[in-house]
């Protein structure tokens, strides 16, 4: 017992009386009693109280208590013959089994809750945005599956490769996307569609070999031209079209992506931008470039004074001119893979509407 546990002298004296003090406190109490008459008197009084209570006569239980207890126990069927140890063991096994079942049930509930939570998360979790720039609407549009018959009537036609696909003016073969590096649809709106359509027809006639263009009735409003041509021919055609671009009120390019549910929509597209997208060797790079132009044109369109247009125009990849190396010797230029790439085919459908 330490000093903190004895807050007053009475507790100390009672502990002394009851023999519950350690040696140090006992000595202390003895010293107090010896030196202080009041404390000695107090101890004596406490001792008398204790003696008085402890000297009370011992009262024995009534004789009939045992029989009453037995009767009560028998009444509750607790004094039945001893339970066989095997039965007791089985009861304990049963209790353990029950506990195990409860634990298993709890574990199953937790697992079920986990699966449910995963399903809910899968349903409500937002799909991560794919390279979506701030304040830019890429306007991915679903491609409605087009029946073969729904190709633009007389003017349409598609040739994949000359050796594999036979094109007819009436019912063109469907181009295979996987083999064409770029597939898109250019929708032009103009107030003078006849003039523009005639110009486009002529430009196609002059610049695209007849085997690569498919138009049954050129010049008609709302009809489309589908071209599966080389990138080089497309670039030449687009250069030609840029001369009439000032008469185009709206030029929208829809670039097909590898995602089956979407297209990239580029508003206010320019021939240079189309050419830049088409010339990208890698399909993913084409998509990236298309997205970039979509974002840029969108931002330019949305800016009130179009002040940034000039700045953006100056930084577009299309206009970044990388100086070509100049041959300084008489060495003839070696034909590289670039020439072959120029021959890679692209698919573009041009539609003119009012």
């Amino acid at each position, binding site marked *: 017992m330490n000093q903190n546990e004895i807050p007053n002298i009475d*507790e100390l004296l009672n502990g002394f009386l*009851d023999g*519950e003090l350690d040696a140090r406190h006992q000595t202390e109490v003895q010293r107090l009693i010896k030196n202080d008459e009041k404390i000695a008197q107090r101890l004596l009084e406490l*001792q008398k109280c204790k003696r008085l*209570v402890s*000297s009370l006569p011992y009262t024995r239980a009534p004789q009939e208590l*045992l029989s009453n207890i037995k009767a009560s126990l028998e009444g*509750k069927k607790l*004094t039945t013959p*001893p339970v066989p140890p095997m039965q007791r063991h089985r009861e304990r096994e049963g209790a353990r089994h029950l506990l195990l079942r409860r634990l298993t049930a709890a574990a199953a509930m937790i697992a079920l809750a986990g699966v449910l939570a995963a399903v809910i998360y899968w349903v409500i979790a937002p799909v991560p945005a794919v390279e979506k720039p701030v304040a830019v609407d890429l306007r991915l549009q679903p491609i409605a599956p087009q029946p073969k018959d729904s190709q633009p009537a007389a003017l349409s036609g598609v040739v994949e490769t000359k050796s594999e696909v036979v094109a007819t003016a009436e019912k063109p073969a469907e181009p295979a996307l996987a083999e064409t590096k770029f597939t898109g649809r250019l929708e032009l709106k103009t107030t003078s569609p006849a003039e523009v359509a005639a110009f486009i027809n002529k430009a196609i006639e002059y610049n695209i070999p007849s085997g690569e263009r498919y138009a049954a009735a050129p010049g008609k409003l709302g009809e489309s031209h589908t071209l599966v041509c080389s990138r080089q021919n497309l670039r030449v055609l687009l250069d030609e079209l840029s001369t009439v671009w000032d008469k185009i009120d709206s030029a929208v390019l829809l670039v097909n992506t590898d995602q089956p549910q979407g297209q990239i929509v580029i508003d206010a597209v320019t021939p240079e931008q189309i050419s830049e997208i088409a010339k990208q060797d890698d399909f993913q790079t084409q998509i990236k470039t298309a997205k970039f132009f979509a974002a840029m044109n969108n931002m330019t369109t949305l800016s009130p004074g179009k002040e940034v247009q000039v700045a953006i125009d100056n930084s577009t990849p299309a206009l970044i001119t990388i100086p070509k190396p100049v041959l300084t010797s008489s060495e003839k230029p070696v034909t590289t893979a670039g020439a072959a790439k120029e021959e890679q085919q692209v698919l573009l459908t041009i539609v003119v509407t009012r």
Partner: protein
Amino acid sequence: MTKAANISIDDAVLVQQCRQGDSVAAETLIRKYQNRIYNAIFRICANPDDAAELTQDTFVKVIENIDKFEGRSSFYTWAFRIGVNLTLNYCQRNVKLGLKSLDAEDNDDDNEDKGVLKKFLTDVNLPDPAVVAQNRELCRLAVKALMKLDDTQRAVVVLRDIEGMNYAQIAEVLDIELGTVRSRLSRARANLREIMERMF
């Protein structure tokens, strides 16, 4: 050596046998502790009939719950714990119902009582316990004073001074801290002394 120390070491064996449904072992345990538990309960509730009934309930509960006895304490303190709890609950119930023993409500100004207690407390010499025990009148007054204590204080005094338990056993029976036993016993004895003084 206190009464509490005189506990047979065979309790554990008897408990084990009792758990296995041995009614003889159960009877042995009852016989062994019935008087002590009855006496303590009687000193707390001060009514022999109630004490008998409470003791009976105590042993029925002990035998019913013998499987729950984990052996962390001794069977003796465990059984006392059940008995004292039942008794204190009974006392609380009676206080609420106003059924406290009429003996405890006797008039304190009884001249005869004053004389006996005065003689006892003013005697400088310590009285011989045997002499005190023989003085029936003094015992009656002591019981009367004891019954004026609070139930929990009376329980701690009974367990210490009548049953002879040490502080640790009292703490176990009443499920309180050792320090609480010390302070509660100190207050109980101080109150008892004041009650006796008022009875002069």
